[in-house]
């Protein structure tokens, strides 16, 4: 009858798979969000929503990266990804892609500029 061991540390009684509601992280279509994608809320949290989703909407009034959301919620990135996928499907958030590497200027051009500057 004795309770085994010391008082348990507090956590939630629920496991992560119920937070992401059982949907596998990678859905058939391409993953819409990357670790560095910026998420912006497009709707206010509603009363009936899961607390995590509501928290995402509240904190994403200002764009946050997926990695940051994951850190704030103390949830693994994959779970956050699934959450965001659900929110995206309902058009509650939007994703702003990070500046793709292709937009970066050509290293040769930069080098040319550098040389030009040095020649000044």
């Amino acid at each position, binding site marked *: 009858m004795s309770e085994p061991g010391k008082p*348990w540390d507090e956590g939630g*009684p629920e496991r992560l798979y119920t937070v992401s509601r059982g949907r596998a992280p990678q859905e058939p279509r391409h993953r819409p969000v990357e670790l560095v994608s910026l998420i912006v809320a497009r709707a206010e949290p509603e009363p009936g929503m899961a*607390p*995590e989703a509501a*928290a995402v909407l509240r904190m994403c009034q200002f764009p946050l990266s997926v990695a940051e959301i994951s850190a*704030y919620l103390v949830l*693994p990135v994959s779970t956050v990804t699934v959450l965001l996928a659900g929110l995206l499907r309902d058009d509650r958030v939007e994703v702003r*892609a*990070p500046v793709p590497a292709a*937009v970066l200027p050509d290293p040769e051009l930069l080098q040319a500029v550098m040389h030009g500057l040095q020649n000044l």
Partner: protein
Amino acid sequence: MVFAGTSSGGGTSPGGRRPASTLVWVIPPAAMAFCAGLAVAVVPSGARAMVAWCGVAATLAVALAAAEAMRRGRLITTLRTRLAAQEAGFRQRLADQEAEIRRLTREVLPATVARLRRGAMVHEAMKDVDYAPNLDPDFDAAHEQLLRWVLDTVRTEEDLRDAAQRAFVNIARRVQAIVHQQAQDMREMEDKHGADPDVFEDLLHLDHGNALIGRLADSIAVLGGSRPGRQWQKEVPLFNVCRGAMSRILEYERVDLHSVADVAIVGPSVEPLIHALAELLDNATRYSPPKTRVHLTAIEVQSGVAIEIEDAGVGLSEEARRRTDAVLLQAATGFDLNDLGETPRLGLAVVGRLAVRYRFQISLRPSAYGGVRAVLVVPQDIICPTPAPGGAIARAAKLPPPKPIKRATPLPSPTRPGPVAQGRPGPGFRQNGAGLPQRRRRMPMTAPAPFRVDSAPPAASATPRDPARQPVQPGIWLDAFTKGLNGEPIPAADAATDAPDPRKSPSTPDSSSTPNTSDKDE
């Protein structure tokens, strides 16, 4: 012939009154004497003396026989009365003994066994037993011996059962401890491998299996008369409790969690409630078609919170309903581990046990969807207001403060720092490291300019927040900026003058990238 007649007459006489019988027995000798006298008178005188002698002898003989018959008759009478008295006595005793045995079986035995079950020793239980006073000591001794023997047997059985239950509970506890440890480890691994979807998915799978094992162990512990699983120190919001229950069943994906009352459950009652809900949910998902959904709602009612679980499965026939009620009731009165094999719906027995112990009211009724609607009413006294409406996540201290962030309108802000942060600084810094001091100066200058502009109005409105917000507000780019910012509050004045020309020089790539992102935004 005369004898026969007289004896038969004498035989009947004792039934009557005693004086009459004595009189009756006078008749045969008198009749004999009369016949002898008659014969003496009738016979010729020569034979008269002989006849007289014979007559006298016969009369005497008859008289003797009559006297003897009368004596025996009296003896029989007395014997009969004595016998009757004795018989009545025996009957009385028999009735008394029967009554005593009946009392033993109906009152004494149940009472003493109940006392025994409550933990009294055998001699204590037998101390208060009173015996019938008017019965012989032999009977009482036998009675006591029987009682003692029965109680000893019961005691032994009880001890055996206790030991078995304790063993069950003990094993269940160990399994629970292992499962809990596993769950913790698994959670750590999930955090660790959260970025790898494949590993993460497998971990979730294992985690789920682990939770199912945990529920089984909890069930064994409950059936063994113990409490299920872990203790919670603080209250837990009902939403999390419901989701906790969902995480312990096989087909949790089929459960739709609808509106949940904004209350919390006090710590000690959390685990029993989760377990009871999990068993009911398991029941609902197991006995309904795989494609159908199971609905879980929780609403506040007068007497507490009513948690409804509704499935669209096979309905409850009247007979099945009676059976489930019986299972619940049986669990309420006490549960025998030996019955385990006979109740396929083990979960109901567990729920019944928990319901009794923690005063949940449970009813299973046919649902409007054709399935079963299980309602579990949580009593008012284990409910408390939620410290954080919306669940534990919402109250997490790590969340960025929502309000000040709201002021910066979402659309313009990312366009401004976005390109600078993501596109420029990375390579920019590296090149600085390579040895281009001018570029290094330029970067901070572009950086602080928008940053200051953004933060200046809020800083004016709420100055104390400013330092607190700075570590919270920044995205990746701001982090990079603050790093870059480290040494340079000085050039702020120069920045105004210097800023234009470096901006202009890279303005072509910058301006090209800015519209790009803003296009994407819209």
